[in-house]
């Protein structure tokens, strides 16, 4: 490490850091399935400050959505959290009862799901769907409801909101449905927004407009945002920090630009080299060899990337992996960085 890299260190690192809005520590989660125990998350530690945008990046199967669902307590019935803690604004998320969680979901913590069309009720006007949220979580009643719902539509820049209030999801384009979902998620001014691939399946032009909107609203209201995506270039463009996940591990966390330009984990470096964005030619793209390990394997090596890694040593498969701090804001889970 050259001393220059420290320049990127977050100012928050110095002296008085406020307690994080969301602090996840050592979270492990497994699925008990008929074909064995799938260790979907292992020792995941992440934190999020008020108003911060954190991108969680990884291939499919890396556990990024599982992580998001665990935060909201909406995991599959087969999921079992075996270790760790998750504290949101002083509340223990993992120990909370369903009733307690229901009070914060949609009000304090909101989620934008992947497919806008299937996440909306197809037989209910979108305006009424927003009213449902306001009635349940903001105790808005009567005449105010309609006005507030139209306000919500206006805020996500839906043209002609009074008319769209009356629309059913099928009458709207994919981008428009996604805006409705954002309006729903933001209706009660949550302090944490979890966006799970909010632009997958949308056109690049729509994607850019939706991301602009999320970032703008996040800044405007000091809302913390967890952006889950497979698109590293997009995460680097919009997020303050990036966490890279691989096979249920967070392998690297750091400021977005630092992770992108000075990746410390071999997987992060490979992921960057394999994206068409950074390559100058097809030949320059470097595919990542191998595939994700079988997470059911009873004896997974401590480093789940070792079988794909060009720097593998004996210790990677035998000794428990350290999380190595590169500086105050950047850390990596790799023996190579510890050396």
């Amino acid at each position, binding site marked *: 490490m050259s001393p220059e890299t420290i320049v990127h260190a977050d100012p928050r690192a110095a002296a008085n850091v406020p307690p994080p809005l969301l602090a996840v520590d050592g979270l492990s989660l497994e699925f008990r399935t008929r074909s064995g125990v799938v260790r979907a998350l292992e020792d995941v530690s992440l934190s999020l400050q008020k108003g911060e945008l954190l991108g969680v990046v990884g291939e499919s199967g890396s556990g990024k959505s599982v992580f998001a669902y665990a935060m909201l307590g909406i995991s599959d019935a087969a999921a079992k959290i075996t270790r760790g803690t998750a504290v949101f604004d002083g509340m223990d998320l993992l120990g909370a009862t369903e009733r307690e969680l229901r009070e914060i979901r949609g009000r304090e913590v909101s989620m934008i799901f992947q497919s806008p069309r299937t996440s909306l009720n197809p037989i209910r006007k979108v305006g009424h769907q927003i009213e449902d949220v306001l009635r349940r979580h903001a105790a808005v009643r009567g005449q105010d409801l309609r006005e507030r719902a139209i306000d919500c539509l206006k805020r996500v820049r839906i043209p002609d909101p009074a008319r769209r209030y009356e629309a059913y999801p099928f009458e709207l384009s994919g981008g428009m449905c996604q805006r409705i979902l954002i309006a729903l998620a933001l209706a009660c001014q949550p302090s944490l927004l979890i966006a799970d691939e909010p632009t997958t399946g949308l056109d690049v032009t729509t994607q*850019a407009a939706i991301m602009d909107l999320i970032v703008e609203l996040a800044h405007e209201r000091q809302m913390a945002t967890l952006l889950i995506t497979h698109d590293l270039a997009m995460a680097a463009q919009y997020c303050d920090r990036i966490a890279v996940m691989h096979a249920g591990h967070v392998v690297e966390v750091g400021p977005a630009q630092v992770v*992108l330009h000075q990746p410390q984990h071999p997987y992060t470096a490979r992921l960057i080299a*394999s994206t*068409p*964005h950074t390559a100058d030619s097809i030949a320059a793209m470097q*595919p990542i060899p191998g595939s994700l390990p079988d997470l059911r394997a009873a004896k997974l090596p401590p480093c789940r990337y070792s079988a794909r890694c060009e720097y593998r040593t004996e210790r990677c498969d035998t000794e428990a992996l350290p999380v190595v701090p590169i500086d105050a804001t950047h850390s990596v889970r790799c023996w190579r960085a510890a050396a």
Partner: protein
Amino acid sequence: MNAPERNIPLLRVQRLQKHFKVGRNAMLHAVDDISFDIAPGESVGLVGESGCGKSTLSRVIARLADPTSGALQFEDVDLAVHPAAKFARDSRRGVIQMVFQDANDSLNPRYTAFDTIAESLRLLVGMKDAAQIKARVEELATWVGLPVDLLSRYPHQLSGGQKARVGIARALAPSPRLLILDEPTAALDVSVQATVLQLLAELRDKLGVAYLFVSHDLNVVRLLCDRVVVMYLGKVVEEGPAEAVFTTPRHPYTQALVAAIPDPDARGRKTVRAEGEPRSPINPDPRACRFHGRCPKGEPKCELTMLDLKEVAPAHRVACHFA
């Protein structure tokens, strides 16, 4: 890459139209008066947002759908005159092949990888000899980097990348001259996407087959294609060498499209966005530019006259008053 002979096009799309009747007196103009050429061995990217007609256009060119009017000059014959239903059994069916978007939906779940590729050889090449078929299927599998011992597997036993390879091998089986690729890597993870793109580039150089690459991933198009055709609501708005279109886009829509590509270096920069929703493709005003209303440069004259493509630089054509 072999320098394609640009003088004699492999395929000449001429004033192609595809309209769908969607009600009384209502016509949806999915493809509206489109002309462009594809040279032998050339890779042409077709880009545009969903609903712009790029899938309809590629299906018409693949002769899976019939055009409303216009010609599809393939070498010396007009393929547009043959109804799609008849063309399926035509001896030329093999010259234009298609790799479909989602390998999950386009592979027969009850066929092994071997059966899928062999079927194409039997029906389109007329191969009958079992030993000959086996040898050719194995050759194709080797070309696309599919281990031969995976040929006995069904789609559900294959990974996403392997299924994409089966789809490519199937399309290459009848030795096509033109391969239409409809978002072939959209469903793949980046790590797998890179290997499939490299495979496609390698096959193109080895076999000299021309590509029509339909995609909304502009980074991929930039890397794989020689030339780009940009569509907006049934019309071609810009066409030119890939490098020129991406570095100096001239049409405001192309500019918005290029500005929307995720770019970590554009962090915090205020970029031009195409605001609002596209116009309706049903009974469009024949005089008005289709992008008018969303266009940041729009002026009243755009509503009154829509320009045809005009050359702004060598081989670079744009349909806009302000280009």
